[in-house]
Protein backbone atom coordinates (compact mmCIF):
# COMPACT_ATOMS: atom_id res chain seq x y z
CA UNK A 1 0.00 0.00 0.00
CA UNK A 2 1.13 3.54 -0.65
CA UNK A 3 2.68 5.64 2.12
CA UNK A 4 3.15 2.63 4.39
CA UNK A 5 6.66 3.58 5.45
CA UNK A 6 5.56 7.14 6.12
CA UNK A 7 2.76 5.85 8.32
CA UNK A 8 5.25 3.73 10.23
CA UNK A 9 7.20 6.87 11.10
CA UNK A 10 4.04 8.50 12.42
CA UNK A 11 3.17 5.41 14.47
CA UNK A 12 6.67 5.25 15.88
CA UNK A 13 6.51 8.85 17.03
CA UNK A 14 2.95 8.52 18.31
CA UNK A 15 4.03 5.62 20.52
CA UNK A 16 6.73 7.58 22.30
CA UNK A 17 4.87 10.84 22.81
CA UNK A 18 4.55 10.31 26.54
CA UNK A 19 7.90 8.67 27.09
CA UNK A 20 11.42 9.16 25.86
CA UNK A 21 12.22 10.32 22.35
CA UNK A 22 13.34 7.47 20.11
CA UNK A 23 16.33 7.54 17.77
CA UNK A 24 15.98 9.59 14.61
CA UNK A 25 14.78 7.28 11.88
CA UNK A 26 17.01 8.46 9.07
CA UNK A 27 16.55 5.26 7.13
CA UNK A 28 12.77 5.52 7.30
CA UNK A 29 12.84 9.07 5.99
CA UNK A 30 15.13 8.06 3.16
CA UNK A 31 12.70 5.32 2.11
CA UNK A 32 9.76 7.70 2.13
CA UNK A 33 11.67 10.18 -0.02
CA UNK A 34 12.50 7.39 -2.46
CA UNK A 35 8.83 6.47 -2.75
CA UNK A 36 8.01 10.12 -3.33
CA UNK A 37 10.62 10.41 -6.05
CA UNK A 38 9.25 7.34 -7.85
CA UNK A 39 5.67 8.63 -7.65
CA UNK A 40 6.75 12.04 -8.86
CA UNK A 41 8.65 10.63 -11.85
CA UNK A 42 5.69 8.47 -12.82
CA UNK A 43 3.44 11.48 -12.63
CA UNK A 44 5.80 13.57 -14.71
CA UNK A 45 5.78 10.84 -17.34
CA UNK A 46 1.99 10.58 -17.34
CA UNK A 47 1.59 14.36 -17.48
CA UNK A 48 3.85 14.62 -20.52
CA UNK A 49 1.90 11.81 -22.15
CA UNK A 50 -1.36 13.64 -21.45
CA UNK A 51 0.01 16.84 -22.93
CA UNK A 52 1.05 14.80 -25.96
CA UNK A 53 -2.54 13.69 -26.39
CA UNK A 54 -2.95 10.45 -24.44
CA UNK A 55 -6.25 10.21 -22.57
CA UNK A 56 -7.42 8.53 -19.38
CA UNK A 57 -4.33 9.18 -17.27
CA UNK A 58 -5.89 11.76 -14.97
CA UNK A 59 -7.12 9.28 -12.37
CA UNK A 60 -3.63 7.79 -11.97
CA UNK A 61 -2.04 11.21 -11.72
CA UNK A 62 -4.56 12.25 -9.09
CA UNK A 63 -4.00 9.10 -7.06
CA UNK A 64 -0.22 9.42 -7.10
CA UNK A 65 -0.45 13.11 -6.27
CA UNK A 66 -2.56 12.33 -3.22
CA UNK A 67 -0.02 9.72 -2.14
CA UNK A 68 2.76 12.28 -2.54
CA UNK A 69 0.90 14.76 -0.34
CA UNK A 70 0.25 12.03 2.23
CA UNK A 71 3.92 11.07 2.37
CA UNK A 72 4.86 14.71 2.75
CA UNK A 73 2.36 15.24 5.54
CA UNK A 74 3.56 12.19 7.47
CA UNK A 75 7.21 13.19 7.27
CA UNK A 76 6.49 16.79 8.27
CA UNK A 77 4.33 15.68 11.18
CA UNK A 78 7.04 13.25 12.31
CA UNK A 79 9.71 15.96 12.25
CA UNK A 80 7.43 18.53 13.87
CA UNK A 81 6.42 16.19 16.67
CA UNK A 82 10.05 15.43 17.44
CA UNK A 83 10.93 19.11 17.57
CA UNK A 84 8.05 19.79 19.96
CA UNK A 85 9.33 16.99 22.14
CA UNK A 86 12.88 18.36 22.03
CA UNK A 87 11.65 21.83 22.95
CA UNK A 88 9.85 20.40 25.97
CA UNK A 89 13.06 18.74 27.04
CA UNK A 90 14.71 22.11 27.52
CA UNK A 91 12.19 22.75 30.27
CA UNK A 92 12.70 19.32 31.82
CA UNK A 93 16.42 18.76 31.63
CA UNK A 94 17.80 22.25 31.46
CA UNK A 95 20.14 23.73 28.92
CA UNK A 96 22.36 20.68 28.68
CA UNK A 97 20.82 17.51 27.33
CA UNK A 98 21.82 14.20 28.90
CA UNK A 99 24.10 12.19 26.62
CA UNK A 100 21.66 9.35 26.09
CA UNK A 101 18.96 11.78 24.97
CA UNK A 102 21.31 13.65 22.66
CA UNK A 103 22.31 10.36 21.08
CA UNK A 104 18.81 9.99 19.66
CA UNK A 105 18.82 13.37 17.93
CA UNK A 106 20.05 13.98 14.42
CA UNK A 107 22.55 16.76 13.87
CA UNK A 108 19.96 19.27 12.67
CA UNK A 109 17.86 18.61 15.76
CA UNK A 110 20.83 19.28 18.01
CA UNK A 111 21.35 22.57 16.20
CA UNK A 112 17.68 23.36 16.60
CA UNK A 113 17.95 22.70 20.33
CA UNK A 114 20.95 24.99 20.62
CA UNK A 115 19.12 27.76 18.79
CA UNK A 116 16.09 27.31 20.98
CA UNK A 117 18.31 27.38 24.03
CA UNK A 118 19.95 30.60 22.89
CA UNK A 119 16.66 32.32 22.12
CA UNK A 120 15.20 31.29 25.46
CA UNK A 121 18.29 32.51 27.32
CA UNK A 122 18.21 35.85 25.50
CA UNK A 123 14.55 36.25 26.28
CA UNK A 124 14.92 35.35 29.94
CA UNK A 125 17.82 37.77 30.28
CA UNK A 126 15.69 40.56 28.86
CA UNK A 127 12.78 40.21 31.28
CA UNK A 128 12.47 40.60 35.04
CA UNK A 129 13.76 43.50 37.11
CA UNK A 130 17.47 42.91 37.47
CA UNK A 131 19.50 40.66 35.29
CA UNK A 132 16.66 38.55 34.00
CA UNK A 133 14.26 35.89 35.19
CA UNK A 134 14.73 32.13 35.02
CA UNK A 135 11.37 30.91 33.76
CA UNK A 136 12.40 27.27 33.89
CA UNK A 137 12.78 27.30 37.68
CA UNK A 138 9.30 26.96 39.07
CA UNK A 139 7.27 24.84 36.68
CA UNK A 140 4.36 24.74 39.10
CA UNK A 141 3.32 27.74 41.20
CA UNK A 142 5.27 27.30 44.43
CA UNK A 143 3.27 27.13 47.64
CA UNK A 144 6.08 28.25 49.88
CA UNK A 145 9.53 29.74 49.69
CA UNK A 146 11.20 27.23 52.00
CA UNK A 147 10.54 23.52 51.89
CA UNK A 148 11.32 20.48 53.98
CA UNK A 149 13.40 17.90 52.13
CA UNK A 150 14.84 14.49 52.88
CA UNK A 151 18.03 13.32 51.31
CA UNK A 152 17.66 10.03 49.42
CA UNK A 153 21.29 9.35 48.59
CA UNK A 154 24.62 10.58 49.89
CA UNK A 155 25.42 13.72 47.92
CA UNK A 156 28.21 15.29 49.94
CA UNK A 157 28.41 18.96 50.88
CA UNK A 158 26.00 21.58 49.64
CA UNK A 159 26.52 25.31 50.01
CA UNK A 160 23.37 27.41 50.39
CA UNK A 161 22.95 30.94 49.11
CA UNK A 162 23.66 32.29 52.60
CA UNK A 163 27.02 30.55 52.62
CA UNK A 164 26.04 27.79 55.05
CA UNK A 165 27.40 24.38 54.28
CA UNK A 166 25.13 21.42 54.86
CA UNK A 167 25.96 17.77 54.47
CA UNK A 168 23.54 15.86 52.32
CA UNK A 169 23.72 12.46 53.93
CA UNK A 170 21.21 9.77 53.10
CA UNK A 171 18.00 10.15 55.14
CA UNK A 172 19.01 13.52 56.62
CA UNK A 173 16.31 16.19 56.60
CA UNK A 174 16.79 19.85 55.82
CA UNK A 175 14.84 23.07 55.53
CA UNK A 176 15.96 24.80 52.33
CA UNK A 177 15.01 27.49 49.87
CA UNK A 178 12.82 25.88 47.24
CA UNK A 179 14.72 27.61 44.43
CA UNK A 180 18.00 26.17 45.62
CA UNK A 181 17.08 22.55 45.77
CA UNK A 182 14.50 22.21 43.03
CA UNK A 183 17.02 20.77 40.58
CA UNK A 184 18.18 18.24 43.17
CA UNK A 185 14.58 17.17 43.69
CA UNK A 186 14.14 16.74 39.97
CA UNK A 187 17.22 14.56 39.81
CA UNK A 188 15.90 12.42 42.65
CA UNK A 189 18.64 13.29 45.15
CA UNK A 190 16.28 15.11 47.50
CA UNK A 191 12.69 14.32 48.27
CA UNK A 192 10.16 17.01 49.11
CA UNK A 193 8.41 16.13 52.37
CA UNK A 194 4.81 17.19 52.29
CA UNK A 195 3.29 17.69 55.72
CA UNK A 196 0.35 15.43 56.27
CA UNK A 197 -1.57 17.29 58.95
Amino acid at each position, binding site marked *: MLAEKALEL*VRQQHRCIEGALGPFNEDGIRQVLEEMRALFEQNQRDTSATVAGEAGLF*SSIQLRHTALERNKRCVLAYLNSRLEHIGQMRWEFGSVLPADVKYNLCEEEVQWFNNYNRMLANYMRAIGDTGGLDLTQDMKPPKSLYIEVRCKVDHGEFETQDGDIIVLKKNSQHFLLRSECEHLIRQGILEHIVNRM
Partner: protein
Amino acid sequence: MSQSSASAKASEEYFSLGDILSTQEKLPCKVEMPIHRLGYLDLSSDDDTLRPGTKLELPFWLAGSLCSRRRHIVSVELPRAYRENYRQVFKADPNVVDLHKLGPYFYGFGSHLLSFNHPQASDVANSLVRVGTLCLRHDGYLMSRSVTSGWVPYV
Protein backbone atom coordinates in the same frame (compact mmCIF):
# COMPACT_ATOMS: atom_id res chain seq x y z
CA MET B 1 -13.05 32.73 13.37
CA SER B 2 -10.38 35.18 12.28
CA GLN B 3 -8.13 34.41 9.33
CA SER B 4 -5.02 33.77 11.44
CA SER B 5 -6.69 31.54 14.02
CA ALA B 6 -8.38 29.50 11.29
CA SER B 7 -5.04 28.83 9.61
CA ALA B 8 -3.43 28.10 12.99
CA LYS B 9 -6.09 25.50 13.67
CA ALA B 10 -5.65 24.00 10.20
CA SER B 11 -1.90 23.61 10.62
CA GLU B 12 -2.41 22.17 14.12
CA GLU B 13 -4.58 19.49 12.55
CA TYR B 14 -2.18 18.96 9.65
CA PHE B 15 0.64 18.11 12.05
CA SER B 16 -1.55 16.10 14.39
CA LEU B 17 -0.30 12.50 14.61
CA GLY B 18 -3.71 11.41 15.89
CA ASP B 19 -5.47 12.89 12.88
CA ILE B 20 -3.03 11.19 10.50
CA LEU B 21 -3.74 7.87 12.17
CA SER B 22 -7.51 8.36 12.14
CA THR B 23 -7.46 9.17 8.42
CA GLN B 24 -5.65 5.88 7.82
CA GLU B 25 -8.82 3.94 8.65
CA LYS B 26 -10.16 2.07 5.64
CA LEU B 27 -13.51 2.11 3.94
CA PRO B 28 -15.03 -0.01 1.18
CA CYS B 29 -14.68 1.60 -2.26
CA LYS B 30 -15.63 0.77 -5.82
CA VAL B 31 -13.60 1.88 -8.81
CA GLU B 32 -15.65 4.00 -11.22
CA MET B 33 -13.01 4.92 -13.84
CA PRO B 34 -10.02 2.95 -15.14
CA ILE B 35 -6.85 3.79 -13.22
CA HIS B 36 -3.86 2.85 -15.33
CA ARG B 37 -0.60 1.39 -13.98
CA LEU B 38 -1.95 1.24 -10.44
CA GLY B 39 -3.40 -2.23 -10.72
CA TYR B 40 -0.94 -3.36 -8.02
CA LEU B 41 -3.17 -1.77 -5.41
CA ASP B 42 -5.60 -4.64 -5.94
CA LEU B 43 -3.80 -7.63 -4.49
CA SER B 44 -6.33 -10.09 -5.89
CA SER B 45 -5.71 -9.15 -9.53
CA ASP B 46 -2.76 -9.28 -11.94
CA ASP B 47 -4.16 -6.51 -14.11
CA ASP B 48 -1.97 -3.46 -14.58
CA THR B 49 -5.06 -1.27 -14.55
CA LEU B 50 -7.68 -0.92 -11.84
CA ARG B 51 -10.87 -1.67 -13.76
CA PRO B 52 -14.24 -0.03 -13.08
CA GLY B 53 -16.33 -2.21 -10.81
CA THR B 54 -13.34 -3.43 -8.79
CA LYS B 55 -14.06 -3.38 -5.07
CA LEU B 56 -11.28 -2.64 -2.66
CA GLU B 57 -10.66 -1.08 0.71
CA LEU B 58 -8.87 2.24 0.64
CA PRO B 59 -7.70 4.45 3.49
CA PHE B 60 -9.76 7.59 4.06
CA TRP B 61 -6.92 9.93 3.02
CA LEU B 62 -6.96 8.36 -0.44
CA ALA B 63 -10.69 7.74 -0.82
CA GLY B 64 -11.44 11.32 0.12
CA SER B 65 -9.46 12.71 -2.79
CA LEU B 66 -10.80 10.21 -5.32
CA CYS B 67 -14.43 10.71 -4.35
CA SER B 68 -15.57 14.27 -3.91
CA ARG B 69 -17.91 16.80 -5.42
CA ARG B 70 -15.51 17.34 -8.29
CA ARG B 71 -14.19 13.84 -8.83
CA HIS B 72 -15.79 10.47 -9.05
CA ILE B 73 -12.84 8.17 -9.60
CA VAL B 74 -14.15 5.85 -6.90
CA SER B 75 -17.40 5.62 -4.99
CA VAL B 76 -17.48 4.88 -1.27
CA GLU B 77 -19.65 2.96 1.15
CA LEU B 78 -19.99 3.50 4.87
CA PRO B 79 -17.83 1.09 6.89
CA ARG B 80 -19.63 -1.55 8.95
CA ALA B 81 -19.53 0.26 12.27
CA TYR B 82 -21.33 3.33 10.93
CA ARG B 83 -24.09 1.54 9.06
CA GLU B 84 -27.77 1.27 9.89
CA ASN B 85 -27.68 -1.96 11.93
CA TYR B 86 -24.85 -0.75 14.17
CA ARG B 87 -26.56 2.61 14.58
CA GLN B 88 -29.64 0.73 15.81
CA VAL B 89 -27.52 -1.09 18.40
CA PHE B 90 -26.04 2.20 19.54
CA LYS B 91 -29.49 3.69 19.85
CA ALA B 92 -30.48 0.84 22.14
CA ASP B 93 -27.38 0.87 24.36
CA PRO B 94 -23.93 1.99 23.21
CA ASN B 95 -22.31 0.62 26.34
CA VAL B 96 -22.68 -2.97 25.18
CA VAL B 97 -20.53 -2.38 22.11
CA ASP B 98 -16.77 -2.60 22.32
CA LEU B 99 -16.02 0.59 20.45
CA HIS B 100 -12.31 -0.04 20.55
CA LYS B 101 -12.71 -3.25 18.60
CA LEU B 102 -14.57 -1.37 15.89
CA GLY B 103 -11.55 0.80 15.30
CA PRO B 104 -9.31 2.84 17.58
CA TYR B 105 -10.44 6.10 16.06
CA PHE B 106 -14.20 5.61 16.12
CA TYR B 107 -15.09 9.26 16.68
CA GLY B 108 -12.29 10.86 14.65
CA PHE B 109 -12.79 8.62 11.65
CA GLY B 110 -16.56 8.95 11.97
CA SER B 111 -16.32 12.74 11.78
CA HIS B 112 -14.11 12.50 8.71
CA LEU B 113 -16.67 10.23 7.04
CA LEU B 114 -19.19 13.05 7.19
CA SER B 115 -17.26 14.93 4.51
CA PHE B 116 -18.45 12.46 1.88
CA ASN B 117 -21.97 13.90 1.93
CA HIS B 118 -23.31 10.39 1.95
CA PRO B 119 -27.14 10.26 2.09
CA GLN B 120 -26.91 8.80 5.61
CA ALA B 121 -24.42 11.42 6.78
CA SER B 122 -26.75 13.20 9.18
CA ASP B 123 -27.75 9.87 10.75
CA VAL B 124 -24.10 8.99 11.24
CA ALA B 125 -23.45 12.39 12.80
CA ASN B 126 -26.36 12.03 15.20
CA SER B 127 -25.25 8.53 16.08
CA LEU B 128 -21.71 9.72 16.90
CA VAL B 129 -23.04 12.47 19.13
CA ARG B 130 -25.44 10.12 20.88
CA VAL B 131 -22.82 7.44 21.50
CA GLY B 132 -20.33 10.00 22.73
CA THR B 133 -22.79 11.66 25.07
CA LEU B 134 -24.05 8.41 26.52
CA CYS B 135 -20.55 7.04 27.06
CA LEU B 136 -19.54 10.31 28.67
CA ARG B 137 -22.56 10.27 30.95
CA HIS B 138 -22.07 6.65 31.86
CA ASP B 139 -18.34 6.59 32.39
CA GLY B 140 -17.66 10.14 33.41
CA TYR B 141 -15.04 10.49 30.75
CA LEU B 142 -14.51 9.14 27.30
CA MET B 143 -13.14 5.68 27.89
CA SER B 144 -13.98 2.53 26.07
CA ARG B 145 -14.23 -0.99 27.32
CA SER B 146 -11.92 -3.34 25.55
CA VAL B 147 -12.04 -7.03 26.30
CA THR B 148 -8.31 -7.51 26.00
CA SER B 149 -6.84 -4.32 27.37
CA GLY B 150 -9.29 -3.10 29.99
CA TRP B 151 -10.10 0.59 29.99
CA VAL B 152 -8.55 2.42 27.09
CA PRO B 153 -8.64 6.20 26.60
CA TYR B 154 -10.40 7.40 23.49
CA VAL B 155 -9.38 9.68 20.69
